[in-house]
């Protein structure tokens, strides 16, 4: 559910960031101009991949995609969003502050809830694998029994 709403929120966040960056570009120091443009490009790409992976992993119940989404969220998006929200030298406008607060809430909640979701899914798949092994063992035992019957018939 968080991913669903995050996917809807993402385009508006991009538009807001572009407009704010364009408005304050000329009054930033050179270092922060470069940093902000780089962060913006990186965050757009990563956010797109992350939400797509999370959505796919969640619906198809595939653990690798979901694990990838969780790692991207924890290791990349969390520091980047906290940087955008808390670093005063980038001249944060109030509009940007509000948009970043919403995005930070999304990212933090996804990290927490994603951990529990992956754990539940992994436990379910481990249980399924163990049960599958029992049905496989029964099939092997049946084959062994049939081989013994045939051996007895030919060696008589």
């Amino acid at each position: 559910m968080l991913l669903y709403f995050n996917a809807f929120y993402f385009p508006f966040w991009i538009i807001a960031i572009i407009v704010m960056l364009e408005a304050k570009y000329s009054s930033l120091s050179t270092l922060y101009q470069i940093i902000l443009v780089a962060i913006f490009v990186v965050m757009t790409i990563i956010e797109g991949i992350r939400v797509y992976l999370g959505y796919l992993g969640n619906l198809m119940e595939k653990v690798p995609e979901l694990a990838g989404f969780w790692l991207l969220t924890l290791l990349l998006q969390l520091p980047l969003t906290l940087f955008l929200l808390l670093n005063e030298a980038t001249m944060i406008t109030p509009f940007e502050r509000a948009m970043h607060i919403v995005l930070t809430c999304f990212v933090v909640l996804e990290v927490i809830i994603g951990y529990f979701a992956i754990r539940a899914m992994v436990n379910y798949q481990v249980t399924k694998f163990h049960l599958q092994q029992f049905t496989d063992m029964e099939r092997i035992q049946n084959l062994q029994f049939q081989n013994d019957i045939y051996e007895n018939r030919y060696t008589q």
Partner: protein
Amino acid sequence: MAVSGLVPARFLCMIAHLVLTIVILLSRDSNVKACLPLNYSPNEYDSKDTELIVGLSVALGLLVFELVGFMGGISMFMSSQAMISTTLHASAAVSLAYFIFDAWPCGHYWYIFGFCSAFPAVTEIFVMIGSFAFNKGI
């Protein structure tokens, strides 16, 4: 029942209202100056400022309350509450945008608050009571 487009629309309108309320909270200087006479004393400024802060904070609290009710699933699929909420929050977002850009005097904010913050919260409370106490589903 086509609720497929209504749920994200309601979410986006509520988030737009939330973002604009936070923006006004952080930059309310020109609006407070617009409702004071030309030569004002710091006491008058502070009293009007406090009024506006109180109004904005209460609106923020009611909005968060409604967001919790929506995301918690209590009123996510009730189309009547969703319609009321979407239209009122969308009109609040537009009026708040005018409020910021045209520097409306701070007295006008109470109209926006009454119609577009208090009213959806009250209907949300009714919906919550209905679904908990009377087991009224979708």
